[in-house]
């Protein structure tokens, strides 16, 4: 409680100054990103182990996925990463309106991503290309592969957890729009936007790996 009257209202009393508060928040976020990398890392290890055990089945089962939908989602997600970075750039330069527009575009891109993901999932549910014991698709393509349900187990868990992150990211971006519109975030204090930005770019990085590993291995 040692701050004098000139301290900004967004500076918490347990921090020495604004810069220390900013750096501490950011390192905390990177600690969280570390745990995220390990969470998804476990699934990437599972992918590698099962692909090493079933190399031909993975390459054949991959043909049951729609490359175009995956490609559109990649472009949408990279575009949303750009607009997220631009939202931070805009608020640093006191362009509140531009920042709000960029956050809104990011939000819409996330919604498009989940919409396309829904179409993909719906198609697979309809065909019975489902994980584990729920698998029931016996079409002609699977005559030359053993155990394609393993591929779909890993596909659904990895893209599903990633989709959950996109949905949570949408909530966080909506929260940022609310804060920015209420002038709680401004050029002197935009730490929440910076941190959500880091989270959003991590979601993009994970998709950058999921796209070739699931859609492009044929």
């Amino acid at each position, binding site marked *: 409680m040692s701050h004098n009257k000139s301290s900004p209202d967004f500076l918490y009393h347990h921090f020495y100054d604004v810069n220390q508060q900013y750096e501490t928040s*950011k*390192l905390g976020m990177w600690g969280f990103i570390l745990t995220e*990398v390990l969470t998804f890392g476990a699934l990437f290890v599972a992918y590698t182990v099962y692909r090493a*055990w079933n190399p*031909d089945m993975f390459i054949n089962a991959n043909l049951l996925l729609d490359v175009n939908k995956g490609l559109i989602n990649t472009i949408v997600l*990279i575009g949303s990463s750009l607009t997220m970075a631009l939202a931070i750039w805009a608020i*640093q330069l006191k362009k509140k309106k531009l920042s709000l527009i960029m956050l809104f575009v990011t939000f819409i891109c996330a919604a498009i991503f989940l919409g396309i993901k829904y179409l993909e999932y719906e198609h697979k549910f309809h065909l019975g290309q489902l994980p584990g014991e729920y*698998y029931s698709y016996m079409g002609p393509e699977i005559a030359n592969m053993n155990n394609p349900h393993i591929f779909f187990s890993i596909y659904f868990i990895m893209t599903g957890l990633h989709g959950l992150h996109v949905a949570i990211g949408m909530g966080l971006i909506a929260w940022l729009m609310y804060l920015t519109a209420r002038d709680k975030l401004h050029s002197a204090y935009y730490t929440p936007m910076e941190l959500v930005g880091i989270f959003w770019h991590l979601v993009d990085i994970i998709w*950058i790996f999921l796209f070739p590993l699931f859609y*492009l291995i044929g």
Partner: protein
Amino acid sequence: MSEHHHIIPLKIYFIVAGILFFLTGVTVWVSYIDLGFLNIVIALLIAGTKATIVALFFMHLLWDDKKNLIAFVLSLMFLAIFMIITMSDTEFRGAINPEIKDPINKRAAFYDSLPLTDDHGNPIHEDGSHESGDKDDHH
């Protein structure tokens, strides 16, 4: 107040996004060319390049205090340890006891309406022997 925060020129963001879109196109294009095992190597190299670019520029790691970069690189090192130790088990199970290398049942019971095949789609019998005239085993 925030003068210590580096503001990155707008141009850099657009160049970075352009490179990311370009590499996405390249990785899709390469996937349609059959290069054998090199396909997965190239796909992962391109994905790694894209992820590095996103981390350095969009996540501002290039301009940040280096402790953040250390946290991120550490996470990748932990992941590498995780991957190497797990694979050193799962890939070498047959080295000690060949009987535990392959699953007892070749595939799940709900595929029973289909003929049993090997990894290349050639039919095999329940006892594991290949059918005569197997085209893949001539050489």
